[in-house]
């Protein structure tokens, strides 16, 4: 069981790269520092995109979960 509380879920199912990243980056200023958001994506590229985006923007990917047809990414706003 993850030891973080999900403050918001961003549903980006059906969107292709780069839109899940673009939309998440636009949401970041609306999220408090320290809060965690859940991102729902169907884009396989999100698996590698989000950790790379987090490394270059100073955010943190806490976890990536997969099931057929759905990817869940948990991002914590660090700054």
């Amino acid at each position, binding site marked *: 069981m993850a030891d973080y509380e999900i403050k918001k879920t961003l549903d980006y199912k059906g969107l*292709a*790269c*780069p839109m899940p*990243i*673009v939309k998440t*980056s636009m949401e970041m200023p609306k999220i408090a520092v320290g809060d965690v958001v859940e991102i729902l994506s*169907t*884009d*396989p*590229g*999100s*698996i*590698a*995109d989000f*950790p*790379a*985006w987090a*490394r*270059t*923007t100073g955010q943190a990917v806490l976890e*990536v979960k*997969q099931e*057929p*047809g759905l*990817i869940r990414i948990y991002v914590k706003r660090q700054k």
Partner: protein
Amino acid sequence: MDAVMQAELKRLFETKLNRAMRLYLETCTHCGVCVEACHVWQSMPESKYTAVGRAEIVRKVFLKYFSLEGRIAPWAGETIELDDVAVERFYDAAYSCTGCRRCMVYCPFGIDTQQIMSIAKLLLVGADKEPKLLSMLADMSIAKGEDVESSSAGFAEAIANLEPQVEALYPTPAGRKTIPLGVQKADVMFVGLSGAHSIVPAAAILNAAGINWTLSSFEAVNFGAFMGDPKRTKAIAQRIVAEAERLQAKRVAIVECGTAYRVMKYQTGEHSFETVAFVELIAKYLKGGMIRLRRNVDKRLTYHDPCQVARNGGIYEAPRFVISKLAQDFVELTPNREYNWCCGGGGGLIAMGELEFRMKSSRVKMEQVKATGAGAICTICENCHTQLTDLNAHYDMGLDVHSLTMLAAHALVKPGEKA
């Protein structure tokens, strides 16, 4: 702008001044032929939206600092100081140009305004004034290349989850992997976009043709090229080059992405592999009898030549050959091929959003498509596909907008079926 920044921007400007660029900057006679060639001007007739209008901003800075005339008598001609105002004007010029190069086709001297705009874009990067969305996406792409291993297991799982969709289009021949990864010495390394919509149809076609292929770990799109940053462009492309060379792929097939194709084909130098646009393979497999398609497009179909694949990449006939096997009623856009109107979504505008500008500046594209009476349009570039989809909705055009690869994949004749 302080003197240090101005000196740095002048240095960057000078890095772009090869013989061709000097010709472009010194030759313009202001004849005005390029004015009507620009889809933005055709749709929004203001002088700032002409090719010559955009180029003049860069040209006047060139005259001030890099021409003999400007250095001896800067007051004698119209010149512009390289300052914060000039940088703002660079932004407006560079990001109202899609880099389609239609103006170059009409220019009697062949002046390449996209190349001139590449100076403006590079100076914007130097001044830290580039669109931050594009640099964020470019940096993300580069970071992926630096640490592909950490996400490789997750990526393989995500790709495996797509395989039922491929099987639904065409059953994978026995003994083959539906979406192969990391295959050495493959005949084709397919570089897709990250979405299922680009990987699934290509996989079905490659499997139907019986090709020994592998899927690249990277997406084809090059955000560094959109933002006009040669270093980022090279770093992003190099991920794919290194992977293809490591796997000793014979051929790198680029998905429906015009910029990605042009960068890999013409802007990354010589490689041990051949670079092709995926549509070229579909046409080749059809001609060789390796795949068969049903003629299953009922509506009148037209085709949009993407600027970076057609006018700037030279691919005109392969998509038309594929369409000839799919469509019952095909109609060309007028004009077409190298004279086709840009869709209005290039140069990074799609990734940046810019919906209002894209819709207003592409009215001429909408009118061109409507004039065909077509009920469907297809293309071979993701940017163009997105822009045409947005135009269709904005202007209530009532079109079906298709990817040609997707149309072909859905038309594959399966084993035991009749065409």
